[in-house]
Structures are given as structure tokens and as C-alpha cells.
């Protein structure tokens, strides 16, 4: 049972998902036709099986040949005291959001249990349930009750919420005519006035303008000081160290570190799971991959073939993937997905080397280089996912999330896309475009 000082107690919590929707490919018309006839039954079995785990009761690694099952969380045990503000950090796909979703009862765990003392509100998104046709006023009530307030509580806080959001003038305008910024401000204002004992916040601070973000951070700080328990997931390490006394580092569904936020954050930043622009696996048993291909190393380099952490925005960046192909005769699709700090998917790039287009690759060691031109990415931290598919049959050989990362820096003295502007610039890309001007003097 919970003692009175504990807000959350989690014991051996685990969560698994089935993702596998593998499809057979057909080489001829008859095969395709037959499968169309067969497919209703196949589809029925497939969609039905998505929630069944009874064929894998013992949850150890011996079942790893079941490729389509992934463990989002494994054996998570922790206790959070009342009034603590805890940051949860980790790479994309480490299980942070899954943990929050379990604690806020959105999804149920596969194993284990959690006990929670007190009223809990979760903020996984700003403005959840906003309806575009309803007015600002109506949406405050709708959103407030969705987040767990009663009508009376919204009544009491209404003026405060409106004032905090700064959209007084548009209270009776349908939200569909609001700008994105206004919607975010309104949504956050409602959320900021929740008064639960436990507040769960996911990466919502990544939106909104800078001043408003600061206002929200201050509000959250107050929440923490009022003796409320706050769980805060973020990629923003400064926010985590500033707001949280304690941080938990998740990696691959496990707790990798748990301690004071500055220690855990610095461990994350310096360890292999954090920021590094080159990784290699020396031991073949540890290499990510399956029977056809394995990832050996990945490096982010400058045009002179040197591994770098920081890149001038104007210079090209080379992502180098070294992999072993163990079996000949497959069409391979090595590719990368790039995400920025806000978790925005910036782009996907697929190996389009004309030499290997449509060519089955013989076994051997390959080094694939993707050249990102200068003046394309915006400044900031970029996280790289490395993936490799085979075609016919379609299989996923490896999918390493946030395997390396690098910084793009845009200095003011350069001739980059920022021109003469020295302030902050938004956007996931910052291309240097050709601008032309016409000028005629006044007559």
C-alpha cells in the first residue's frame, strides 16, 4: 500500500505492442487475385490478433522471433514522492510517452501495477478536444471538463484563464478563425489552471511563442512549489534542469538513470544514448539488424570526411551508414529519418544511388553516404534515425532511433539565409533562396 508521502508507486510495469502488419508480395496476377479472395479472412485474423498476446505468455527474450511485438516499457519500478517535480528524458521511442499514457489511464499496461494517490490530470496535448465551430468561451468549458475540471471549477477560474491567454477580444469568435498561436495560448491557459494533485505534462512547451513559453514555465514552477507532484517529459534539457529536482532517463523501455536532474541530464548528454555524432558496434552480436543486414556504424561527417558535432549551416553534412549485408540477392533500402529538437519529422532520405537502383545487392560491407547540402537545415539539434528495409519480401532489418545527432549552427557574421536578421528564426528548414528585387525611385 502507499504511504502518505508517496504520490505514485510503480511496480514492474511493462507494456508491449504488436506492430507487425507484414504483407506478402505477389509476383503475378493470379497470386494477387487469389490473395484478394483470401484476404478478408487474413485481414480478419490480422486485425483480431492485434490485441492478443496469449500466444506469448512468458515474457522473456526467447520470444524475440516474434518480430511484430515490441516492448515499449519493461520492468519499470519507481516511487515518486508527493510534491516532487520529476523530468522524464530519453530518446524518441524510449517509452516516455507510453509511461505517461499508462499513468494517465489512456492505455493499460500489459504487466505490473501502479498506484496513484490523488487527482491526476494529464496534458499530452494543448487544447485537447477543441472544436473549431465552437467559440473561445465554449471551448474553455469543453476543454476544461475534458481535462477533468468540473463546470463549477471552470466558472471560478474563467476570468483568470481568459486573462492569462490574452484572447479576451475573441472570446465569442469560433475557434476556427483563431490563429494557431491563439489556439495554443487558449489551450495552455486552461491547462495551466488545472489544480490536480498530480500533473502530467508531455512536450507541450515546444509550441507557442517564446514569451508565452516562458510564462508557462513560470506557471509550472509555481505549480511545483505548491506541493503538487509534476511529471514532465521533455527534450528541452534546460527546462528539465530548471524545473525538475529529479530526472529519470528512459532508454529502450528501461530506467537507465534516476537521480538529481542535473546529474541525469549530463549523463544523458554525454553517454551514448545522448548526443553523439558517431557510433559503432564492434561486436557483431550487438549490431542492430537481422538475418539479411546489420548496422555496423553511423557517423556524421563534414565534407572533408571528419566526424563533427557542430556544422556551419552553409556547409554540407554527410551521414555515413556502414552496414554488413549477410545474404546476397535482396533489393535494399537504407534510409534516414531526421527529427529536430521539437520532435518534428524534418525529412526522410532514401538511398537513391543510381548505381544500385533496382539492383539486388551482393553480400559484403557497404558504406552509404547521404549528402545533405548546406543551407538546407535550420539551426538546432538534429536527431538521425537509421533504417534499412528489404523489398520483396518487405522486411525491416533495423530501425535505430536517434542513433546519432548533430548541431547546426548559424552564425550572424555569415552569408546564410538569415540575411541581416540577428534574432531567432523558426522553421525546420532554412534554405537559402534566390531573392530578386525591382526598384523604381518615386517620380
Amino acid at each position, binding site marked *: 500500500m502507499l504511504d502518505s508521502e508517496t504520490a505514485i508507486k510503480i511496480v514492474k510495469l511493462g507494456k508491449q505492442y504488436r506492430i507487425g502488419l507484414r504483407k506478402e508480395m505477389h509476383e503475378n496476377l493470379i497470386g494477387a487475385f487469389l490473395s484478394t479472395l483470401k484476404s478478408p479472412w487474413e485481414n480478419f485474423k490480422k486485425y483480431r490478433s492485434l*490485441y492478443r498476446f496469449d500466444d506469448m505468455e512468458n515474457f522473456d527474450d526467447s520470444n524475440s522471433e516474434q518480430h511484430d511485438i515490441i516492448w515499449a516499457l519493461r520492468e519499470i519500478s519507481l516511487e515518486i514522492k508527493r510534491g516532487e517535480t520529476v523530468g522524464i528524458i530519453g530518446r524518441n521511442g524510449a517509452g516516455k510517452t507510453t509511461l505517461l499514457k499508462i499513468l494517465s489511464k489512456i492505455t493499460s499496461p500489459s504487466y505490473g501495477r501502479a498506484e496513484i494517490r490523488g*487527482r491526476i490530470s*494529464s496534458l*499530452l496535448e494543448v487544447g485537447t478536444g477543441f472544436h473549431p465551430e*465552437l467559440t473561445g468561451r465554449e471551448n474553455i468549458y469543453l476543454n476544461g471538463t475534458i481535462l477533468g475540471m468540473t463546470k463549477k471549477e471552470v466558472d471560478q477560474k474563467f476570468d483568470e484563464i481568459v486573462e492569462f491567454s490574452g484572447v479576451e477580444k475573441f472570446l465569442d469568435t469560433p475557434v476556427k478563425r483563431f490563429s494557431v498561436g491563439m489556439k495554443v495560448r487558449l489551450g495552455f491557459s486552461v491547462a495551466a489552471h488545472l489544480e490536480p494533485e498530480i500533473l502530467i505534462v508531455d512536450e507541450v512547451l515546444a509550441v507557442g511563442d517564446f514569451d508565452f513559453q516562458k510564462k508557462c514555465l513560470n506557471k509550472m514552477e509555481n505549480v511545483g512549489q505548491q506541493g503538487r507532484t509534476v511529471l514532465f517529459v521533455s527534450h528541452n534539457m534546460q527546462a528539465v534542469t530548471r524545473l525538475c529536482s529529479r530526472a529519470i532517463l528512459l532508454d529502450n523501455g528501461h530506467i537507465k538513470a534516476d537521480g538529481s536532474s542535473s546529474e541525469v541530464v549530463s549523463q544523458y548528454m554525454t553517454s551514448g544514448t545522448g548526443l553523439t555524432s558517431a557510433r559503432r558496434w564492434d561486436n557483431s552480436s550487438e549490431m542492430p539488424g537481422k538475418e539479411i543486414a546489420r548496422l555496423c556504424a553511423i557517423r556524421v561527417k563534414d565534407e572533408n570526411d571528419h566526424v563533427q558535432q557542430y556544422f556551419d549551416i552553409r556547409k554540407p553534412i554527410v551521414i555515413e551508414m556502414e552496414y554488413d549485408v549477410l545474404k546476397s540477392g535482396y533489393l535494399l533500402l537504407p534510409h534516414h529519418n531526421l527529427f529536430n529538437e521539437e520532435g518534428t519529422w524534418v525529412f526522410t532520405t532514401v538511398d537513391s544511388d543510381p548505381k544500385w537502383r533496382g539492383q539486388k545487392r551482393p553480400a559484403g560491407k557497404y558504406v552509404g553516404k547521404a549528402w545533405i547540402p548546406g543551407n538546407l537545415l535550420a539551426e538546432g539539434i538534429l536527431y538521425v534515425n537509421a533504417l534499412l528495409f528489404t523489398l520483396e519480401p518487405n522486411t525491416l532489418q533495423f530501425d535505430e532511433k536517434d542513433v546519432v545527432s548533430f548541431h547546426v549552427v548559424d552564425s550572424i557574421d555569415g552569408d546564410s539565409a538569415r540575411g541581416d536578421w540577428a534574432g531567432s528564426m523558426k522553421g525546420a528548414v532554412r534554405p537559402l533562396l534566390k531573392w530578386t528585387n525591382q526598384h523604381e525611385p518615386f517620380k
Partner: protein
Amino acid sequence: MHNPEIYSETISVIEPKKRWKLINLNELKQYRDLIFFLVWRDIKVLYAQTILGFSWAILVPLIQIVIFTVIFGRIAKISTDGIPYVLFSSVAIIPWSYMSQVMSSSSQSLVSGQNLLNKVYFPRLIFPFTPVLAKLVDFGISMVLIFFVLLIYKIIPTWNLLLFPFFLLVMMSMSAGVGLWLSAMAIRFRDVRHAMPFLIRMLMYTAPIVYSASSIPEAYRFFYSLNPLVGIIEGFRACLLGTPYQWQFILPGIISTIILLISGAVYYNRMEQIFVDVI
């Protein structure tokens, strides 16, 4: 404002979900304000940016009544046990439009609400039940139509009208039962959306909406009446028009409504734990 001392003592336990826990009334009570606002949202949004607004709630059944009266009453001359066809069809079409509307929006409630489903917790039962309550407003408005038709034909209400709330309840339960089944099914099998218009058309022709239940041969009447729609439509007819209640048509349907509702709740509950993961 809530009282922290009370809340601090509430301990909620999160575990792999136990099956067979049907309806948590206490929890629903805690969320009654949310239910109110969701219902109210559905009502408000339905006729947003329309010229005619709530007049649609009268116009749609009115046009249907006119069409049915012309086609089935005048041209096909279907027997109505001596009741004028306008009267006969209007008391059936209005509950029928309620049920068909609830069934189609309730069956899609989880799929169309997946953004909410993914981002916040509240009792999942609220999703399919919102249309059951929201569509009552349309139903109430279109009752005005029935009122006028009764007035024109100078039908005086009888004691039969006392059972109106009862049939209202059966009508809501049956729509809720279908909604529970289909919304939970639609999460995994999106076929539901495509089958729905077809299913609704089928249901309409298997119910005594355009024809009279007494035209069904004696031998098949029991099986025919297992369709809950039969009892509901016949019940409304007797209750509003003052004709005698034909319990042979009504009782079997009530029993199947109860079965539908309970089995729907059980199925919904079983599926609840996987909604978010497979959506």
C-alpha cells in the same frame, strides 16, 4: 474548488485491465459535467453554419413522411389497419430517424473521437452514449410535427400515452446497444463504416415503418418481433395513436433490447483495454 483532503485519500490503481467490470456509475457521475458539455457540443455543432438551423430537425422527417405517404400510401396502397397513412407513418418515422441517427454516429464515435481517445482519459462509455443523448434534441423538436399531425386528425391522447417514457427508454437502450457493439467493432474493423448505410436500410425494411406489423403471417410473428425495432415502432404507434397495445409484437423486442444492451456493454468492456493500442 475541490477539497484536497478528500482527493488526497483517493488511491487509484492501474493494472492490466480486469475484465467483466461492467459500468462504473460512480466514475460516470464524476464526469457528468463533461458528459453535459460533450452532448451540448454535438447539439451545437450539428447545425453550425446552416441557414435553416434546427428547422432541419423538422424538415427532414417531414419530407420523408410526404414521400412515404405518396409512394406507399397512395401508389402502393399499403394496408395500415385503417389508420390514415400520414398518421401511420409519422409516428414511426420520427423514432426511426432518431434510432438511425444514433446508430450511425454512435458506431463511429470512437473512430472519429480517436484524437481524444489518444490524449486524455475519461470513461470510454461516454463516447457511444453522447449521440444517444444529443439526438434526443432533434427527436424532441420533431415531436412537434407529430403533435400537429395528431391535431389535424383530431386524435385525442388516451391513457396509452402514459407508456411514452417507457418506449423512449427502450428506444434509447436499443440505439445504445447497437452503438456499443458497433463502435467497439469499428475500432478494429473499419468495415463498419461501409456496412452502416446498408445495415440501416435493412433495418428499416425489417421494421413496420412503411407497412403494418399485422401484415406479417401469424406463423412468423414471433421471429419477426425479435427485432427490437418492431416492438419500439409498434409501441410508439399504440401509445401516440391510442390503438391497442399488441404485446405479442412488443415483448420479444424488449427482451432482445435488454440482451443487446448488456452484451454490447460486455463486448465494449472487453475491447476497452485495447482501443488505444489498435486504433
